[in-house]
Each structure stands twice: as C-alpha cells, then as structure tokens.
C-alpha cells in the first residue's frame, strides 16, 4: 500500500514535514491555516486507514518496509506496526488536526506556528512507526525541537523558564539514552529492534566475549544501558519524581502545544518502555535486587514510583489554583496508572523469560494490566487533550489561569459548562466513559501482583475525584463573578468542532471499548505468549 509513491508508513512520517515546509512559505495566515488543517486532516485520515487496515489476527509487524540506510552501523530505515503502535498512530493522526484547528486562534506568525505543529507530528509518527533503534532515537529527539519553540515563542508569561526546563530535562534524559543506544547497537551489531527484542537470540541473550564487552562486564553494560533508557523514558512519561518539567511546560505552552504534549508526547515514554525497555531487559526487571538489605526487583521499584505518581500527582493537582497546572498534574496522576500497568508487564515478562515458564494467573494479570496501560495511553490522549483545549478556551477569553478569578461561569457559558463537565468526568474515570475501562484493567491486573500498592493507589483515585470537582466548582459553580459580565465566555464554534470528535470517541470507547481494545489485546496477548 502506498501513497504518491511512498509506502504508507513512511508517508505518515514524511508528509507532515512536507506540509510544514510548505507552510513556511505561506505568508497569508488564512491560507496557512487552511493548508495546515487540510494537510493534517488528510494525514489523520491516512492514520485512521492504517489503524483500521491493521489486521489483528496476523501475528508480527505489518506494513513492514526495510531499506538499508546506514549499513556501516547496521541501521536501516525499518518501519512497521503492531497493535500498540497502530493505536498510537491513530491518536497522533487524530489529535494533530484538532490542535491545528485550535491554534487558529494564534495570529502572531501563524504559519510558523502551524509548521512547527506539523513538524512535531513528524517526530511523533516517526517514533511510533520505526523499528530501528537508531532512528527511534533520532525521531525521539526530533520531536523535542519544535515543541521547544512552540513553548518558547507562543507560550504564557513564564515561557522562557518553562521551555528551557523542558528542553534541558528532556535532553538530560536523552544523553543516557544515546549512550544506551550506542552500547546496544555497538555490541549487538544491529539496531533492528525486532531482532534485539528476541529473548533467546537478541539483546537479552547477549553475553559478549567471555562475559565482557569492551573490557566491561556484560552485567554492567546491561545495567548502564537499562538505566539510560529507564531515566529517559521516566522523564518523558513522566514518572515521579522526574515530572516537574511537566507542570511548567504544559501550563506555559499555548493550547495546541499543551494538547499535543499531554495528548501524544507523554506516550513516547510509555511506548518506549513497552517497545524497548521491557523486551530488552527482562533479567534486570525481574532479577533480584538488594537495596539496603531489602529484597526487591526493578519492576517493584518502578511500580512504587508509579504509585507515587498516582498519589502525589493527584494531591498536587488538588493543591493548584492555576487551571492549566491542575490539568497538567492530572497527567502525572493518569500516567501513573500507565506506569503501574507497565510495571506489572515488566515483572511478569521478565519472570517468564528468566524462569522459562508461564504462570497462567500472573500472565492473565499482566495481559490485562498491559491492555489497560496501552488503552490508558490512548484514553489519556483524548481526555487530556480535551481538558487542555477547554482550559485554553477559557484562558483565551479571560486571559487568566487563576481559578479563583472564575466562578459561576456556567451561567454565561452553558454549552462550555456541559462540555467541561463531560471532559472532567472522562478525566475522572467515570464508568461509561473511556478512562474507566483502562483504569479498571490496570487495577485488575496489578491487584494480584502489587496488591498493597494497588490498594494505596486508590487514594490517588479518590483525590482524582477531588481535584476534578475542585475544577468544576471553581470554573462553573458558585455565584457568577460579575467581573466577566461583558465578556463572551461561551465556547466558540471552532473550539466546539475541535472538541466534538474527542467527546464522541471518549463515549464510544467507554461504552464499547473493543473497537480499539481488541487490536491492542491481540498484540499484547502475543507478547505474553498467551
């Protein structure tokens, strides 16, 4: 399958950059807006075609293209998708045109702004389709640059600090990742992730020459490589305590930037765990680890960090008065559930590889937890993008993010109020909407593996309710603040069009999740050999 002579997955990567390039030469902002929207929508359509064309009954990667690229290093242009990447591609393809539509509100250098958004999409799509470790790293880094400029140039009052923090934080993680990529590629002689991921012949089975590589014991090499990836992806997800770039970046970014940051960029980290860290390092995840005399495993430590994210993320969100910071911290809270699911997956996958046997009950738990984590990635993409859209909508009209300045806005903005409550409830995980399905799966999956931590995570779930209600209360309820008497606070038609697809998908996924879950489940089940 190919489009204008390019295979469809490569098209998804290249096309946004081409549109972005074209946009740079469009001086008229209305032409630029229309071009960007049409382009992004078309790419979104292709992404949807890829998702719905994906056949979950066929094992292995699909739409695979492998062309030699940097043969000296053993790196190739290798793309292909499984159920997890298909879902992520769909999410990226869906959110970009919506973000473009929202960013029509920006008049200042509109074409550049839109070009950066599309350029950002190239980085995201690249990460989700490539199967080559080197290129994974390239695209992973590539996504950083446009977002830096989006925040730095079009952000809120504190944008310089936020963008620098975002950039340095991410780059700090990337350094280790670069090292790890080199170590793995150099030692194994290939960057092909499908080869490296094989537990018996790939990187997990790597022993080096007489147990050493470049004179360093292989165990140390592996630990170093693991740490490099672990920290980089923890920063991206973000896993507590690597999360403090997020509230600043999210709250200072312009609306479209926040939507894509929270909606897709955070998933790069989670995707990295699933695609690289879990399959490459089963022995480190599940092997015994002794810290201060306490017998534990890396997976357990990861679960603990995830738990901290769930609980402290919720508390910190509850402690905010800035609406965008509140929503930003809700991401820490929600991505904590993703990390929790991944921790279960890591432990069970690691044990399976180490011991060579499959405990059926643990395996079932791991499948559910991983399903939940991946679905939660998708769901959080929808609901957080929606929440940022709504927070941005009200910020754009009032020019303040301070929730104490709002109050009773429901009177003047009844439609906005309804949409806001819907999105809030999706974020809260109301049964019948999408977030519940994934959170339930994670809880179900982790209960038998990390019982106590799952129980404590319920505190986070409780405070999710508290901060969501705090948001609703501050924005919509209470007597109307007469300061906004002459403002038009109602959601605009353009914003409504941008949020409507999210609402529809949130509802559909909540009522009948199998349209996407069956795709994810097929892949996940194969990972665990079920």
């Amino acid at each position, binding site marked *: 399958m190919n489009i204008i002579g390019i295979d469809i997955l490569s098209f998804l990567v290249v096309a946004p950059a081409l549109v972005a390039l074209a946009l740079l030469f469009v001086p008229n902002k209305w032409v630029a807006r229309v071009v960007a929207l049409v382009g992004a929508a078309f790419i979104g359509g292709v992404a949807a075609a890829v998702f719905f064309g994906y056949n979950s009954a066929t094992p292995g990667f699909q739409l695979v293209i492998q062309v030699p*690229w940097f043969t000296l290093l053993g790196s190739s242009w290798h793309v292909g998708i499984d159920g997890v990447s298909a879902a992520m591609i769909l999410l990226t393809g869906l959110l970009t045109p919506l973000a473009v539509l929202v960013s029509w509100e920006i008049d200042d250098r509109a074409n550049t702004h839109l070009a*950066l958004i599309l350029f950002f999409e190239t980085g995201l799509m690249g990460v989700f389709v490539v199967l080559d470790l080197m290129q994974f790293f390239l695209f992973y880094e590539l996504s950083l640059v446009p977002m830096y400029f989006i925040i730095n140039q079009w952000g809120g009052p504190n944008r310089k600090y936020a963008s620098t923090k975002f950039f340095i934080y991410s780059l700090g993680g990337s350094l280790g990742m670069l090292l790890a990529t080199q170590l793995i590629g150099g030692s194994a002689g290939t960057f092909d992730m499908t080869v490296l991921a094989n537990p018996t012949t790939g990187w997990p089975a790597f022993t080096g020459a007489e147990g050493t590589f470049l004179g360093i014991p292989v165990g140390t090499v592996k630990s170093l490589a693991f740490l490099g990836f672990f920290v980089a992806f923890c920063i991206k997800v973000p896993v507590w305590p690597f999360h403090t770039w997020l509230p600043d970046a999210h709250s200072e970014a312009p609306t479209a930037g926040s939507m894509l940051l929270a909606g897709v960029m955070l998933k790069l980290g989670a995707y990295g765990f699933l695609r690289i860290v879990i399959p490459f390092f089963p022995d480190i995840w599940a092997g015994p680890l002794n810290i201060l005399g306490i017998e534990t495993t890396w997976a357990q430590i990861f679960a603990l960090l995830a738990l901290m994210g769930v609980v402290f993320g919720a508390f910190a969100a509850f402690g905010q008065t800035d609406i965008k910071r509140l929503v930003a911290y809700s991401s820490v809270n929600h991505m904590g559930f993703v990390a929790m699911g991944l921790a279960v997956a890591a432990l069970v996958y690691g044990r399976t590889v180490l011991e060579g046997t499959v405990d059926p009950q643990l395996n079932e738990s791991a499948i559910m937890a991983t399903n939940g984590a991946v679905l939660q990635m998708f769901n959080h993409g929808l609901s957080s993008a929606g929440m940022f859209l709504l927070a941005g909508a009200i910020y754009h009209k009032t020019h303040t993010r301070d929730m104490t300045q709002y109050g009773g806005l429901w009177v003047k903005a009844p439609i906005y109020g309804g949409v806001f409550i819907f999105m809030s409830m999706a974020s809260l995980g109301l049964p019948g909407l999408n977030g519940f399905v994934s959170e339930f799966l994670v809880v179900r999956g982790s209960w038998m593996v990390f019982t106590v931590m799952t129980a404590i995570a319920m505190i986070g779930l409780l405070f999710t309710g508290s901060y969501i209600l705090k948001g609703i209360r501050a924005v919509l309820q209470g007597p109307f603040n007469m300061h906004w008497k002459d403002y038009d606070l109602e959601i605009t038609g353009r914003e409504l069009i941008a949020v409507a697809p999210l609402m529809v998908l949130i509802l559909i996924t909540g009522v009948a999740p199998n349209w996407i879950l069956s795709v994810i489940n097929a892949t996940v089940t194969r990972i665990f050999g079920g």
Partner: protein
Amino acid sequence: MDLGQFLSDANNLAWLIPVGPLLAFLVITLITNKATLVSADEGGHYADHNHPAYPGLKVPVVADWSRVASIVVGMSGVIAAWLISIAVVTNAAGVADFGKYVLESSVRWMDTGAGGFSMGVLVDPATVAMLIMVPLACTLIFIYSIGYMAHDPRQARFFSLIALFSGAMLTLVVADNLLLLFVGWEIMGLCSFMLIGFWFEKPSAYKAAVKAFTTTRVADVIMLLGIAYLYAVTGTLSFREIVYNVEVLEGLAELPAIIIPGLSAAGLIGICLIIGTIGKSAQFPLHVWLPDAMEGPTPVSAMIHAAAMVSAGIFALLRMFPLFEAGGHPHDGVYTPPLLLMAIAGSLTAIFAATIALAQNDVKKVLAYSTISQLGFMVAALGIGAFVAAFFHLLTHAFFKALLFMASGSVIHGMEHGEHHVHHHAHDDEDEHDHAHETPLLAAESHGHDAHDTASHDAHGHDAHGHGEHTAHAPHFDPQDMMNMGGLRKTMPVTFITFLIGGLSLAGFPLVTAGFWSKDEILLDAWYGVTNGYGPHALVFVLLAISAFLTAFYTMRQIGLTFMGEARTEEAKHANLGRGVVAFTMTLPLVVLAFFAIFAGFVGVHPDFPIFGSIFSPNGNPFFDFITTSLAVKPEKVGFYWVPVLTSFAVGLGGIGLGYLMYWRKPLVAGQEDPLVKILGTTLHTTLKNKYYFDELYTIIFILPAQWFSKNVAYEFLDKGVIDGTLHFTGRLFTWIGDFIKVMNAWLIDGFGDGLSEMIGRAGIWFRRMQSGSVQQYLLIVALAAIVIVIVFALSTGVLQAAP
C-alpha cells in the same frame, strides 16, 4: 442485525429498558435544551430562593417551546421504559420455573487475553421486583417535576439529568454483572452530583454536591478494589456465574484472602463491596452527605433518596448476598465477617440517624435522616440473613419515602407561594399560582432577599444587588423550616392526607400500612435468632425496635409541626399549591404513591399471622416464595412469633401516641419552643441538632489536612522544594563551573599573542551578526536544517524509490 428478530426474543427485551431515558437525555441535551437570553432584571426567572438576581446581566432562560419539548421527550423516555418493563415482567411471568430459568442476554464487551468479558442483561425475580417499583416511581417523579420545576430557568437541563439518572438506575437494575452495575451506580453518582448542585450558584448547593460525590467516592474506590479482586479470582463478574453457583461460592469461602490473614477471599471481597454500599446508601460513618444533599430540588430528593440511588446500594447488597453469606449460615448462628459488618453498621446507623431526626426542624432533613435510618434497617436485616425482609422493606420504603419527599416538596412549594403572597400585598385572591411568579413587582421584591443569600459568599465584591430594599425582611425566611409552618392541613388538604398516609406507613402503623408489614418481617427474623441465643440477632432486634419507636415519634412530630394547630407565620397562612396544571401534576403522584404506601405491604404477610395471613397468604408468603427463587440456596422460613408482632405494635403505636400527645393535642403556637428541648435537655438536643458534630469532626480530621497536605507538602515542599530545588541547584552548580572555566580561559587567552585575540575578535563580530537576537531567525534556521536532514535522509534511505 435484524431488529425485529432481535426483539422477538424475550431474552433481549430488557436491553431496551434503559434506552428510553438515555435517549431522552441525549435528545434533550443536544436538541431541545434551548435557552433565550433574557435580561435578568425582567421576568423574575432569576430572582427566587435558588438563583441570584444578576442585575444588568443577560441570562439564559429556557425557551417556552423548549420547556414543553423537554417535558414531552423526558416523559416519553420514562414512560417507554415503564411500558417495556411491564412487557418484560409479563414475559418473565411466562417463564416456567422462573428463578432457575431466567431471561438473559449478553454480548462480548472487551477482549482480555484469549478470553473476553461479557456485558449483558439479566431478568430474574430480584430484577422483576425492582422493575415493578423503579420505573413506576421514576415516572411519578417525572410527572411531579413538571409542576415543581415549571418556572425554573434551567428546567430543560433538569429533565435531561433526571432522564440520565433514570437510565442509569434502570441499567443497574437489569445488569447481569457487577461491572455494569457499577457503571450505572457511578453514573447515578454523577447525576446526584449534578442535581444536588442543580442550583449551582448557591454555596450550600454546590458544597453539598461536592460532599456527596466525594463521600461516596471514598466508598466507591474501595468497592472497585473488591470488584477487581472478585474478577481476578473468579475470572468473571456475572451474577449468575458467581452468586448462583454454589461451587464458586464455596471456593471463595475457602480461599484465604490476599494480604489479610484470617479472612477468606469471599470475606475480603464482601467487605469491600459492603463499604461501597455504606457510601452509596449513606450508612454510618459515611452518612454525612445525604442530609446536605437535600439542597437539590425536591424531585431529586425523592429520586436519589428514596426510589433510586440509595436503594441501589441495598440492591447491590441483595444481589451479592450469597457471597457475603458464603462460609457462614446466620440461620444457625454462624456469621461471616461481612455479615457482622452489615449487622453492626446497619443497626447502629438505624438508631443513630433516628436520634438525629428527632431534633431537626427542616422538613426535608427529617426525612433525610429517616431515610438513613430506614436503610440501616435493611442493612442490619441483611446482616442477620433476613434477605427477604430486607428486600421487602426496600420496596415498601421506596414507595412511602418517595411519597413523603414529594409531599414535603409540595409543602415547601406551598410555603414559597405563601411567601410571595405575603410580600406582594396587592396580591389578588383570584391570582393563579402561575401568575405569582411572573409578576415583575414580585420578582423585584424577592430579589432583594436573594442578595442576602449570595452577597455574603461573593468573593468579588459586586454587591450591587440593592441591599437597601430588603433590610426590613431580615432574618431570612426559610420555607423549609417547620417552625414557620403549622395548620397547613387546612390550605393543603390533599398534601396533608397523603403525607399522613406516608407518615403512618413510615411509623409502622399496625396492620393497614405497608411499612408495618415490612418492618415486622425484619423484627420477626431478628427475634428468631434471639430465641436461639444468637448475639448479633439480639443486637439488631433491640436497636431496631428502639429505632422504630423513635421513627414513629419523629414522624408524628413532623406532621404535627407542619399540618396541625394554627399557622405560626403569615406565610403558612397563605401556603397553597394554587390551581391548575402545576397543582395537578404535583398531587397526582402523591395519590398514586399513597395507594402503594398502604397496599404494597400485603404481598408479604407472614402466612401464620392471625386473620391477615389467611387472607393474603393462604398458600404461603407470596413475596417470599417469589423472591427467594433468585437465590441458588433458598433461605429457611422463620416461624411466627408473638413477641416481635407485639413489639411492632408497641413501638409503632407508642411512638405515634407520644407524638400525638406532644404535637397534635397541644400544637405549637408561634414563638413557642419545641417541648422536646426540655425533655432531652439543651445539651443533648443541641448535640442531636448538630448531628453529633460529625461534619465538624470530618472537616478537622480529613478535609483540612488533605487540603494542607496537597498544597504544602505534595506541591510546595516536594515538587517546588525538593525536586525543583535539586534541579535548580544542579543548574546553578554547572553555571558556576562554566563561569569558572570561562574566567580561566579568559586569563589563559590573555597570555597568548595579539594575533590570536584579534582572530577571536573577528570571529566574535561574525558570530554577533549571526546572533541577530531575532529568535524567528534561529527558528527558521533550525527548522530548515531539520527539514533538509529529513529529506536527505528520506532520499538516502531510498524510501522514495523503494516503495513497492
């Protein structure tokens, strides 16, 4: 799928029950809810107890066509649900050996590994019993809302929300598994949040809404754990596969619980699920939300607190009852931890809430505490294994409590009407109720009142509400305060008679009311255990008997204060519902429910009860025989004892008699103190009036620390302080190292010759030109460079050529 074929299968019909209200919700929300912008100064829509005045603001008011359309759509939805329910019940009646064979239908909902999770509907005897009560009650509440909400500026939103509420409740009723039940359960929670806070400008309303949602959520997250655990160990959540399956139950009872020693899996799961109900059905210690929830419009109170949501909590317990019982047998005095939890929590709640109800003066708050107390009866009954009695009481209570709530709503409406009358001195006696609301003069006057409500909570200082004109009315008149009432039987006779019927049923007036029969069944079951020397049975019997006495007393007190004697205020003197559509829609449901409040009890009379048993239960207790078929193991029948029957007589009549003596024979006159204060003593009375200070206690122990922790520890200390502090420190450290190296370099370079420095100088000028300071320029360079890289890279990989 062929719809006709799908529906011709009786198993599938139940799918459609929630569809009507849910569709109505969607249609009203998306289509018929249309408002017009009206200046708040005109029309008076925004100038009553529930909305601030908003001088000079254009406010949305539901358009007239939208009001009618929303009523039509909402009513169609709920009536459709009712008719389909009747059809389903009829179908169920045709199933041979119903209970063992049921109507069920399910579809694959999600894939989980190699297997999957199915969602579906189930119609067994328990469902049928609920399908007789719930849709009927919902329909009546809709009818009542037509009148009650007729003048609200957001009436269409109200109908959409109660439609969603009904849809969620019906989903819960027909659910075939615990997860779908939980879905309905939580959506009802959302609706209750929205409806309690319906008048969202009122601080008391939104605070109550947040409180209700948060308190129930405490319980819900624990319940979620229970559900996840149950799913993990059994691989299913289907009711039939778990609670109708003796092997699964035995397995759960024998499996030791995860982490907690000495408890079985069934025990731990049971406790988690029961905690869910403790929140939802407002049992001690999570009862605090329900009384505050009275801030919502009265039809909501009737729906949430009588017919639907709190009953859903009990219904969930009934559904899962065999799980709680697994491993024990209360009939033989063998209790499991979940059963003991229910027996203790339920009976304590029953008496605790009943004592608080004694000292409340708000007409709806009395009913709120009475609801908590009656739900305690049901939970306690389940704790001693009295499954049938608990179910019976659930149904009768739903009818008479919905009646009482709606009748009290009529009283409040009447009092508000009286208030308008008093304040509008030129009021014409011929004036219809509807007019009263729309007279501009009236609106202006009552708007003065409202400023009182909102101004004090208004953080933004826009106190332009015209304080001057209302100073004369202070203190604020409360139309719900029973001390302001009295003598309403004369002006509101239909409300009085129906309220009396509901009240007597609640009080358990012997033999002729539904409440008597269901309460008697509970006491009978408890007494059976007492005769065998079982402790928990004895606890339940004693506490419930005392509670029943208190119930009868406070009910009589309420009716006495409201309807008896002479009017204690001018407003009460003029309280009435007026005539016309509003009055009709608000009294019709009362009459229908009054019928059930009397006759619903005769379906479950003990067969050995003298005279009545032979009339109503000649072939055994019909309710017992029907409802127990939904259990795999039928509970034993309890014989007939005189002690509990006489106890029922004594506490019912005793309470009624005492209330009669204190509040009917010598009705309070204006300004007189409640005689109860003297009897109980001021300290005790104040403690009761302040609900044992639970709200204050929770604020100190939970709410304030949580807020403090969130802001100061989780955010300021951890994130801003420790984590960011470390980062900033690292950043500064590197800057310092960088500066140091720079200085060193400058010093070293100085040592070199002039030529080098000149070269550097030139390079500097060149760089300066590059560094135009224009970030756009950088940006463009970076973007172009990156794009060039992408293209080169794309070409070099041969992507363009390689595509097949």
